[in-house]
Every structure is written in C-alpha cells, then in structure tokens.
C-alpha cells in the first residue's frame, strides 16, 4: 500500500524516531548510573519490594478492568445516540482529567466521595450512618476510573464511529437486535482496540504516585513509582532507582505483550463514505440515557467541585498577577511545542505499521515492532529518572538552565506519545485500508498523497491527538520539578507553590484556569466533528 520510495522514507523516519526515543531515555539512564556512587546498602529485593510490586499490579489491574468494562457500554451508548444536546461537551470532557495535576483531581474527588463529600452527605440525609470511605483501595480505584474511563470511552467511541455506515444499513435490513449488533459489529472493532487501551490505562495506573499515596489510606498502598522517587530523592540511591524502573518496565511490558496477543485488529472494510445513521437502539433509549447520564455525572462531579473551589478564589487579583501571566504563557508554549514534537514522533511510528504488515521476518517488521514497544514503554520510564539523567548530562554542556525548556518539552512529548499513538494508529490503519491501494494505483503518492488524501481524512484524529498531548503536558509537574529552579514557572508549578504556602484559594483559582485552558484546547478537535457532519449532510 506504499510505493517503494514511500516505504523507504517511512523506514528512514521510523529508524530515526526509534533511535531518538531509545537514546533520549538511554543517555539519561546511563549518565545517572555513571554518576552514582556505590549502592547505599540494604538488599534490593526484599519483602517490601515484593509487597509493593504486588500492590502495584493489583491496583493497576483492577483500575484497568473497571475502566475498560465501564467504557464499553458508555461508548456503545454514545455511538448509538449521535445527536443530542450536550453530546460534544461530554466528549470534550474526556481530555480534561488528563490536564489536571493529580493533587487537584484528588481534592476534586474528595469533595464528591470524601468524608464530607456530596455522596456521603446524601447518604447521611437518607439516614445511612456509615459513610463510604474513599481512603483505601476504593479511593484509588475511583480516582483512576475518573482519569481513565473518559479516555477509554473516547478511544472506543472513535473506533465505533469508523465502522462503515453500510454496516448499520445492512444490520437494520437484517433486523438485527442489539445483542447481534454487539456480537457481530461492535465487539470485533472494540476487541481490536481494547488491548491498546487497556495497556495504556494499566501503565498510567501502575505509575500512579500522588493519587495512590493521598487516597490510599496508608503505606500498604504504595506503588513501585513511590519507591523509585524515594530511592532517587530521599536515599540518593540511583542504581536502585534504575533497577526499580527496569523492573517496572519488565513487568508491565510482559503484560502488554500478553494483551497484544489477545487482541486481533478488526478486519477493515471499505465504505462509500456515506453519513452514519443508526437505526437500532430505539428500545435502548432509556438505558442509553441512564448510562450516558451516570458517566457524565461521575466524570463531571469532581470537575464541578474543582470549578466551585476555583470560583471561590479571589479571581480578579489572580487575573492581574504578572507571575500567573508568565506561567500561563510558559505552560502554553511548552505544551504547544511538546504536542507538536509528539506528533512528529508519532507519525512515523503510526505509518510504519501498515508498511510492515504481510512482511514477516523483515528488518522493517522488526523496526515496526521496536517502535511500537518503545512508544508504549517510554511511559514507564519515570520522568524523575530521565530528568535527573539529563540534568547530569547537560551540566557538562554549559549549565542545564539553558537547555531546561527543551528537556521539559521532549519529556512531555514522550509522555504523551502512547496516547497519541493510540488515537492515531487505528484511524490511520482504517484510512490506509480504505485509500491505500487506490492512491498507489492512481499514482497519488508522497507529498500529494499526504496533502490531498491523508491530511483531510485524518484531520480529526490528528486534532484529538494534539489536544491530548497538550492537555497532558499542561498538567505535568514531574519534568518541570527538576528544572523548575531555572526560571521555568508553569501553571502546575505555580499551583503547587501557592498550595505549599497556605494559599489554598489561589491554588484552586489556578486549577480552574488550567481546566478552562484544557477545555479550550479540545475545542478544535470537536468542532471539526461538526464540520464533518455538515459535510456528510
């Protein structure tokens, strides 16, 4: 589906990208190990490590299972109900939790589910004495589902919306019931996507730190990521940090591999590109309404709590604060740059997959596999390890301060890569299956193909991916934390700084601003949805 020249270009770009990812993480880790003194002492694999490893896998496994299981009915309902007031707003909400620093999300969740939260107040009003306790495994699961359910819904929904309109027409003609539609049409598509979605969510939950500690109720709830942080920051034991990171990558990598074997990508089918009309689901109106309503309430409630606290802040004074302006601009620039870089890295990663299919045992296939693995597993390399490593590396090159913004941008771009690949890859696969042969046979290749065939068709996934990458970078603190001293003040940094000096109200105001910026970022990706609809009509 590519010409030889195109394949060569993609292979070149892919090789370059893989080298970049591996080198960026590798150089940092290498420098960290080189710089390390001898191990501080103490055994590495002790009962403690065993216990936190078990807990890491348990909570991440349960969080993933819950997020994915709940996402299936929600995505189905949203795919069936294609036009109702507020639908695009519900979809917009899905990138929002990612843009919030974990502390903000945790406090939002506490306002809903906490001891003085809305849920417990309601239960108390209904005469139930025993409050729901959010502190413990339950709280961790609620928080992780809050972060990841919307993400899973969005990814699955995108898959369902790629199903050719002809399928729905045919299924209606055949009089297929909801069960048959699910089994024959929806499930094959979802099954192809689920391993990728589940893998991503598992990685996010396995590396969770602030949420797990804050809502975990005690040190029985500790993840490997906490131990890595502790090793690097409190014990000054770099080798331990690196070995723990390797353990984290090994465990999760194995799991991702197993997941990949479970899922086979759905067969792609051609379409004439007619507008999607759903004829099924008249019966499911009520259950769909309830499903969507419950999903929206669950996701929106903590966000509303964040908005509520934010509005209580002294907003006019905040709005006039020059430091806030600086932080806003810095945050926007960093997230714009990192989202752009992320797309640049993601495109060869995504494009190489169709090129390598049906070519067993070739170096190309190996490269494609390598890229796929690297673009996923990079999420498991703790930013604190990479940032520390680069700090050491840059020390020799005229001071880390000069390079700090670039390192932060690259770290953020790589963190967003797994998200972006999961948004783009399935869309691109469908697109190539539908247009690839035709383009080649018509001789529309290289730049012409990108300009006239690929970009128009992939505009929406590209925009969505960009919005995700930006939101993720906006809410990130980990990369900035190491380099923050060198004059980079971002919104999350400022938020934590206010929070750390009793200015809780200011922090809430900044969180509100972060949320608004994130929401604005998602507008382009959902406005283009409207444009497509108009085009369809």
């Amino acid at each position: 589906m590519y010409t030889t020249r195109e394949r060569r270009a993609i292979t070149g770009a892919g090789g370059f990208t893989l080298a970049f990812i591996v080198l960026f993480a590798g150089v940092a880790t290498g420098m960290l190990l080189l710089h390390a003194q001898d191990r501080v002492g103490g055994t590495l694999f002790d009962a403690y490590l065993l216990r936190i490893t078990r807990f890491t896998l348990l909570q991440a496994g349960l969080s993933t299972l819950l997020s994915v299981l709940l996402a299936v009915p929600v995505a189905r309902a949203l795919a069936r109900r294609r036009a109702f007031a507020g639908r695009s707003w519900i979809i917009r909400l899905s990138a929002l939790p990612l843009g919030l620093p974990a502390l903000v999300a945790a406090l939002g969740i506490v306002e809903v589910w906490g001891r003085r939260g809305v849920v417990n107040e309601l239960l108390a009003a209904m005469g139930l004495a025993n409050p729901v306790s959010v502190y413990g495994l339950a709280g961790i699961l609620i928080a992780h589902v809050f972060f990841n359910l919307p993400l899973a819904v969005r990814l699955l929904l995108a898959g369902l919306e790629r199903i050719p309109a002809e399928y729905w027409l045919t299924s209606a003609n055949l009089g297929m019931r909801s069960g048959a539609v699910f089994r024959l049409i929806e499930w094959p598509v979802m099954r192809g996507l689920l391993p990728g979605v589940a893998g991503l969510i598992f990685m996010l939950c396995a590396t969770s730190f602030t949420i797990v500690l804050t809502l975990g109720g005690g040190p029985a709830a500790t993840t490997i990521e906490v131990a890595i942080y502790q090793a690097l920051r409190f014990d000054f034991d770099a080798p331990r940090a690196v070995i723990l990171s390797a353990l984290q990558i090994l465990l999760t990598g194995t799991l991702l591999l197993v997941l990949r074997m479970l899922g086979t990508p759905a067969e792609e089918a051609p379409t004439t590109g007619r507008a999607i009309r759903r004829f099924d689901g008249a019966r499911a109106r009520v259950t769909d309404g309830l499903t969507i309503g419950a999903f929206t309430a669950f996701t929106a409630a903590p966000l509303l709590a964040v908005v509520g606290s934010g509005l209580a802040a002294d907003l006019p004074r905040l709005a006039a604060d020059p430091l806030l302006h600086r932080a806003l601009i810095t945050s926007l620039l960093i997230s714009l740059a990192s989202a752009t870089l992320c797309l640049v890295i993601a495109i060869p990663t995504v494009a190489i997959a169709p090129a390598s299919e049906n070519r067993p045992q070739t170096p190309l296939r190996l490269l494609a596999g390598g890229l796929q693995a690297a673009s996923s597993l990079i999420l498991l390399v703790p930013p604190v390890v990479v940032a520390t490593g680069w700090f050491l590396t840059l020390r020799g090159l005229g001071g880390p301060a000069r390079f700090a913004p670039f390192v932060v941008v690259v770290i953020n771009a790589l963190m967003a890569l797994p998200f972006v690949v999961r948004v783009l890859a399935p869309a691109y696969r469908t697109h190539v299956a539908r247009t690839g042969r035709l383009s080649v046979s018509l001789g529309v290749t290289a730049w012409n193909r990108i300009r006239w065939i690929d970009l128009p068709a992939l505009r929406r996934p590209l925009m969505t991916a960009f919005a995700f990458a930006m939101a993720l970078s906006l809410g990130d603190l980990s990369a900035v934390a190491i380099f923050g001293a060198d004059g980079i003040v971002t919104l999350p940094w400022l938020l934590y700084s206010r929070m750390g000096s009793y200015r809780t109200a200011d922090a809430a105001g900044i969180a509100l601003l972060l949320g608004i910026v994130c929401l604005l970022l998602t507008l382009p990706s959902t406005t283009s949805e409207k444009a497509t609809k108009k085009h369809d009509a």
Partner: protein
Amino acid sequence: MRRTTLIALMLFAATSATLPALAAEKTLSIYTYESFVTEWGPGAKVAAEFEKTCDCKVEWVGVADGVELLTRLKLEGEGTKADIVLGLDTNLVAEAKATGLFTPHQLSPEALTVPGNFADDTFLPYDYGHFAVVYDTETLKNPPKSLKDLVEGDPNEKIVIEDPRTSTPGLGLLLWVKSVYGDKAADAWTKLKDRVLTVTPGWSEAYGLFTKGEAPMVLSYTTSPAYHMVAEDTERYQAAAFSEGHYVQIEVGGMTKTSHDPELARKFLAFMTGPDFQSIIPETNWMMPVAATKEPLPAAFDKLVKPEHTFLYSADEVAANRKAWIDEWLAAMSAK
C-alpha cells in the same frame, strides 16, 4: 505558519530567560527552597536588606524543597554556582556534610536561641518551627493534650499525616514518636494507625485535605495558626500543645567550598543571624526567628503554642537510623 511563529517565540523566551545577567558588581548566588523566593516569601526583602550593606547583587535559585536542594547540589557537584545554600534542615545536615561541598562558616554568632541546643561548625540556623498537630476548633472540641492522647484517642476523630519516605514533616512525626516512645514506637504506630485517615506524599496534600474538612487534625507546625490569624484573620485553626514536648525542625544555611567569593558568603551568613534578616522571617516564612528581631513579634505569635520541651535527634543519629526506623514504621502501618 502560526505554529512556526509560536515555536520561534518559545525559543526566544527560552534563551532570553536564561541569558546570564550582565554583572557589573559582585554577585552572591543563593540556592534555597522555592517558597522562600515567592513574591510573599522572605527572598526579595532579604536580598534588598543585604544589598544595602554589601554593594553586591543577590541571585536566588529556588528548587522545590529542602530535599530537592540537597539533590540539586549533589547533581551539580563541584561545578555548582551556589555560594550559599539556605534551607536544609537538621535531618539533612549529615548527608550534606558528607558531600564535601561545604566549608566551615568560622563564625560564632552570640545570643542565638535555638531549641535543642543545635550548634554546628558548617551550618548556621536561621529559623525553626516545632511540629504540631493542628486542629479545626469547629469540629474538634477536645483536642489531644499529649502524644499519648493522640495515639490512644477516639479512632473516629481522624488525622492526616505525611509520609516519612517522601516528606520532611512525615519524617518529623516519625522522629517525634520515636523520641517519646523509643522501643515502643511500633506499638504506638499500630494504635495510631486506626486514627490516621490517610498518609499523603507531602505537606500540601495533607493540609489541603485538612482545610477541605476531611479530617479535624493534620500534622503541621506550631506556627501554622499564625498564618491563619494574620493573613486570614481567623482563629479557627489551632495547634495542640502536647505535654511530652514537640519535635523541632531547624532550618540552616551554609557556604560552599567552591564559592567564588568566600568573604561575601561569610558576610551573608553573619547577616542571616542578625536582626535585619531575622525580623523578616516570622511573617514571611511563618517560622520562629533564632535571634533578636528589631521589633517584638506580631501579636499572633504570642498566641502560639510554646513547647515546654523540645525533642531533637542529632543529624548523625538520624542518618544512622533513618532506614531502620522507616522500616519499623512501614511494618506497623501496613499491618492489617
């Protein structure tokens, strides 16, 4: 096109922010924790006062917290630009000295009032605060009067504490309990466990949960109520005085071996324990001064808990036992 412009802008912003300031005069580079140099922190005032006396320019570098400060120094090694490091606490002193990056201050300031009789040839104290359980007077009518009360009290009245693996207040409480209970510390933690609502990674998360009303108590400082009284004009949040005594956190500063102007650095350390610097501390850093201030402390500070007894382990003791004590804490707190 627009994107290119933005990237260009970003490059510009990045370079202009990091160009070294054109130095016409002597400069003194001070590394500290971030909240010291925020707009309401002591940083700007301290710099202004010192610059009046020294014909020099103070340059601040603010990292996240005290622990990060030491990490930063270790990463930079002898290439560090720091002349002064301000904001380590006594628990980090042994580790900091072991880096070999510091040099003795050779000063002997008089009339320092530091609880626990802390004195060191390399680091000078500049402020201190006692750890304390801060409680909400609206929801807790009978606050604990001792650590024993806290440990053995009603498990339905919860407290939020910080994790000793990731935060200094968390380590402070661990050392406090160890000071009072000694060998019985594990038993105390097992009892206290039921009262602990959750253990947060840092002070901010804990205090956030507390002010949201999730728990009536939080581990903080005796000086926390002063902030609420002065800045928010409320006496709602108070610190509980514990009859056994309180563990203290002493913040210290020291000069680096590699300082390009040791005379100036030493001058700053002397200034640090003088009245100009000390007068700035209480209402900007919300900690207690270690020496005389120009004017009496604000009224709010008179209302604060004044511990009758102070606990403090030496830096070496902490360095030698930290891991074992944290393991003990972990075992007690993780048990079902």
